[in-house]
């Protein structure tokens, strides 16, 4: 009997806790979920949505709270229409925030699984047929396991939301189902639209030539960003013309060891086999700064995909890192 009671609290704790208590506990849980999720490389950008992302912590908080605010408002309005009794907004808000508790599991798993991002990307590329290296058994296990966990968490969350609405608004049966389903659906759509505009606005504020300041350390170098960017553009053209020796000449000693010419040729050839030849190098270079390293992103077009060269320059203006990344 006691075990049954404890189990029932997992799906309906709202007979015991609601109102301001649930609000405070829910807020703490959500803050922890976002912080742990950010550390694990995931972002909750919707009512149900979860994506791999290296977005800044502030953005993770903004999108999470936008989606929750919309969810609470939508469910409150739905319950106002369908309930025959009066109820308090704080009960709705508190119980809905507390309903997000299962998502902390996803954050914890993402933090504890360092290969989640790489495995998921490998599987996605394999499914789309654009994998340079096909996904292996480990990748598939991680991907399928995390997906199953997501489904369990979503079902648990939906059950909690249903019970939250039933308990805080005295809705039962069909009315409770309608309120929950319509509230979740409308909130997901509205939140997705608003978050899209928020993300677009945050990306569009970065212009070519702007430097995304990750660190405020003064970089010790005799070259300005314009010069660095010109070097990056020149190197990109040399890569396009397959003059890899020029790129390697600009590597620091560690890069020369890590990526000799033969290896660089192999990487570029495999990209060419997948996406075709490089057709165009764009001139709108963007920058970032990480402590004493300056980064130049050069957009380019392969025949079938748009990517970016990422050149990481050290204080001696040598290349300490070279990556090919998505836009």
């Amino acid at each position: 009997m006691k075990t049954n009671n404890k189990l029932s609290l997992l799906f309906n704790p709202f007979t015991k806790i609601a109102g301001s208590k649930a609000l405070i506990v829910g807020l703490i849980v959500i803050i922890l979920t976002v912080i742990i999720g950010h550390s694990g490389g995931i972002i909750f950008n919707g009512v149900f949505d979860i994506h791999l992302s290296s977005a800044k912590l502030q953005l993770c908080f903004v999108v999470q709270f936008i989606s929750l605010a919309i969810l609470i408002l939508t469910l409150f309005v739905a319950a106002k229409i369908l309930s025959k009794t009066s109820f308090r907004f704080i009960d709705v808000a508190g119980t809905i925030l507390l309903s997000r508790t299962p998502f902390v599991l996803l954050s914890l798993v993402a933090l504890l699984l360092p290969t989640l991002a790489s495995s998921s990307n490998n599987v996605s590329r394999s499914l789309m047929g654009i994998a340079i290296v096909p996904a292996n058994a480990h990748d598939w296990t991680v991907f399928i396991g995390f997906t199953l966990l997501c489904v369990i968490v979503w079902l648990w969350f939906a059950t909690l939301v249903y019970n939250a609405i039933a308990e805080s608004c005295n809705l039962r049966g069909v009315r409770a189902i309608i309120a929950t389903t319509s509230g979740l659906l409308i909130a997901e759509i509205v939140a997705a639209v608003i978050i899209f505009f928020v993300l677009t606005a945050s990306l569009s504020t970065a212009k070519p030539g702007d430097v995304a300041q990750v660190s405020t350390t003064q970089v010790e170098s005799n070259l300005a960003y314009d010069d660095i960017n010109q070097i990056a553009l020149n190197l990109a053209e040399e890569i396009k013309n397959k003059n890899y020796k020029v790129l390697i000449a600009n590597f620091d000693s560690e890069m020369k060891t890590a990526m000799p010419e033969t290896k660089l040729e192999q990487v570029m050839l495999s990209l060419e086999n997948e996406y075709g030849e490089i057709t165009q190098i764009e001139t709108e270079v963007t920058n970032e700064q990480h402590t004493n390293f300056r980064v130049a992103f050069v957009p380019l077009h392969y025949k079938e995909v748009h990517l970016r060269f990422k050149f990481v320059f050290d204080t001696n203006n040598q290349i300490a890192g070279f990556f090919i990344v998505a836009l």
Partner: protein
Amino acid sequence: MKLPCKCPSCDNQLKVKSLSCDKCETEVTGTYNLPVLARLLPDEQSFMLKFIKNSGSLKDMAKDLGLSYPTVRNLLDDIIKKIKTYENQ
């Protein structure tokens, strides 16, 4: 001993047929409807008593019963609905 409110045979509402005095053995017979509050279930009657003893404070009731505020309010709403149904009969 619990006061029965429903007929054990047909589940219909029972009525009071006779009342007696222990002191002088006077017996009064007739057909009286049970008071509305007497028709509630024992749990519901206990809830109403606690509600009155807590001066109508649902907050205090919630603390007393170890339940959340909306749960206690829902119980009260259900009892109110039931009482209204009895009054309309």
